[in-house]
């Protein structure tokens, strides 16, 4: 393709990417280095109360938001460098927690950022293998059933993926919360009272269950498509060569699906590192928060109507850096494969 034609084709998406991805990202990065706050001024206020003979006057100093001519609060933006990041990461508190007698990890996880990081990482790393494993198992099973049943089965399998995430999370929540039918069923099975929403770890398990239930169909569809292109000659060679079902899976099917497995893993890592719907859907803020939720909570105006924009920016920059770090091993692997195969 000629360079000019190529440029014409690629231009719209480059423009849109700059407009909607690069510029906001740069803006967030810049904002994370600045702090904006209202300017307060100290004024002397004399209050006089009516009294006998003379009124009693007291003069006191009071700080109040400075208003401009139009009556709006005056804002002042200052460059604070990495101060906001320090505020988030709280290195002194970390050192304190990890020092002898500082309380160790539990103390560390009392700090908002580390609490969110702990949950986000656990969530990301634990759901991934289950999404891949269940997706692959279902794809193999569907590939094995009679052709006429495949359509309906695929449709049913896809339903969880089609549901709006928050609605899906809510429906799971209602199944388990209080006297939800599944809680009642579990209580009946285990013969004891359960309150799955009262404790952090049960909530955490439910959130992960929901995520796997929600995303596994995506993995399933991708793997199922991949299974259709497995070389039948190779598969039958393996049968005649004496490979068991498991060996065929290991030496023929999985290597064939490997690029897809890497793809699904990448997508899933990025998605689950940005876990957010679950926190809202399961109302788990009291027990478990994620990095994305942390950003959200900084953005929520407090009682005085202020948003912690710079902290939110810093937090989202840290989330992005986290995603990049977590993707590095996979990207390196893909790059190496790509170079080997040329």
């Amino acid at each position, binding site marked *: 393709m000629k360079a000019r034609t190529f440029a014409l084709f690629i231009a719209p998406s480059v423009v849109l990417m700059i407009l909607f991805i690069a510029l906001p990202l740069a803006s967030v990065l810049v904002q994370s280095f600045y702090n904006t706050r209202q300017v307060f001024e100290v004024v002397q206020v004399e209050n006089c109360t009516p009294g006998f003979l003379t009124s009693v006057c007291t003069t006191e100093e009071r700080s109040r938001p400075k208003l401009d001519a139009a009556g709006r609060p005056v804002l002042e933006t200052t460059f604070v460098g990495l101060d906001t990041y320090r505020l988030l990461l709280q290195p002194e508190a970390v050192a304190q927690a990890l020092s002898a007698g500082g309380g160790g990890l539990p103390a560390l996880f009392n700090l908002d950022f580390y609490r969110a990081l702990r949950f986000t990482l656990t969530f990301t790393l634990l759901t991934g293998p289950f999404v891949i494993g269940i997706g692959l198992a279902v794809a193999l099973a569907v590939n094995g059933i009679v052709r006429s049943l495949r359509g309906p089965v695929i449709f049913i399998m896809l339903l969880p993926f089609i549901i709006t995430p928050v609605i899906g999370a809510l429906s799971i929540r209602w199944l388990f919360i209080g006297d939800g039918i599944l809680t009642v069923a579990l209580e009946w099975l285990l013969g004891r009272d359960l309150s799955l929403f009262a404790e952090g770890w049960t909530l955490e398990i439910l959130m992960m269950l929901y995520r796997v239930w929600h995303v596994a169909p995506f993995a399933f569809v991708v793997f199922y498509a991949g299974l259709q292109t497995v*070389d039948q*000659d*190779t*598969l*039958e*060679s*393996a*049968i*005649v*060569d*004496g*490979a*068991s079902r498991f*060996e065929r899976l290991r*030496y*023929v099917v999985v*290597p*064939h699906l*490997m690029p897809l497995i890497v793809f699904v893993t990448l997508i899933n890592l990025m998605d689950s590192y940005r876990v957010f719907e679950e926190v809202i859907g399961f109302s788990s803020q009291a027990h478990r928060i994620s990095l994305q939720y942390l950003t959200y909570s900084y953005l929520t105006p407090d009682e005085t109507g202020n948003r912690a924009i710079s902290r939110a920016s810093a937090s989202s920059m840290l989330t992005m850096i986290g995603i990049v770090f977590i993707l590095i091993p996979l990207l390196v692997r893909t790059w190496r494969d790509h170079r080997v*195969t040329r």
Partner: protein
Amino acid sequence: MVGVVLRNVTKRWGSFTGVHAVDLVIGDREFVVFLGPSGCGKTTTMRMIAGLEDPSDGEILIGDRVVNDLEPKDRDVAMVFQNYGLYPNLTVYENIRFPLKVRRVDASTHDARVRKAAAMVELGDLLHRRPKELSGGQRQRVALARAIVREPAVFLMDEPLSNLDAKLRVSTRAQIKNLQHELKVTTIYVTHDQIEAMTLADRVVVMNKGRFQQVGTPTEIYDRPANTFVAGFIGSPAMNLMDGAVAAGVFEAPGVRVPGLVGYPDGPATLGFRAEDAEVAAGPGGEIAAPVYSIELLGDATLVSVRVGPALVAARAPKTFRAEIGDPVSFRIGAAGCHVFDSASGERIEPAPAMASPGPARADLGSTMPIGATA
């Protein structure tokens, strides 16, 4: 002794029958080729022997065992596929070693066996490569090495040369022939290419529409085709077939009169002869006289075709023969070079024994193998 026996083997899919109750005894170390057009059931028959398809009826024996209920891996067969069926993520070495590995063969013997098998197909210096870095011919040799490394009782080859270009096909064909000779393993080979069948086979099984049409040595198949299908399938060009009638030892069709067919019953019949059994002369005079329909220069000969009724009939003339389309020519065919088939069933009709003409049509065909010459 490890032969393969098919007894009444049938394959049905719903109401469609792919293979009709075939019987065959393949001897130890025999090289048998299943030959037929696509969809004739030859591959299905082989897949049933491999265990990749279950027969709907009948018995398959490998050696003395009935293998119907055995898994493919327990049948002691190795198979080579048209599309090679290599493991793309494994190196050539690991590909060849794969059957030994999954069969838990003593690991200390692997290296020697892999290298020996690779050497037999001349792959020695490619062992570290991956399949995608190999040419088609090299890939098929890897597949061959993978088949021989285990020293199976039976080789099954499903159109192994079909994806190779013409030149490579000839050399790989020779390699397969030599390999089978060296290894002395019973081999079943499926192809739609009659030249492969004729050059490789000890015996050829010609199949059509799920039935065996003829089982015999290449010479038998060529010299005495059992019916019009075999006659029309084997040979290059295939045998000329003309519909007409025999009356008192004379075959007649529009423009054709072949006398001397002693011992054949009177009535409608199909007469066949091979292009090389006819002599071409300019002008009238032979058994067949007609204007030239087409003339093809083959290099070593000239192929002259004329129309007889709806059929196109070809004869080989010397390479110097020249004629224009439309020129009158005649073909001289002796009764000895003629084959007579029943016009309804297509089956070969042998002359009545008492009046049989002496000797087969051409006794020397087996050694000269004329079909190869035109390839």
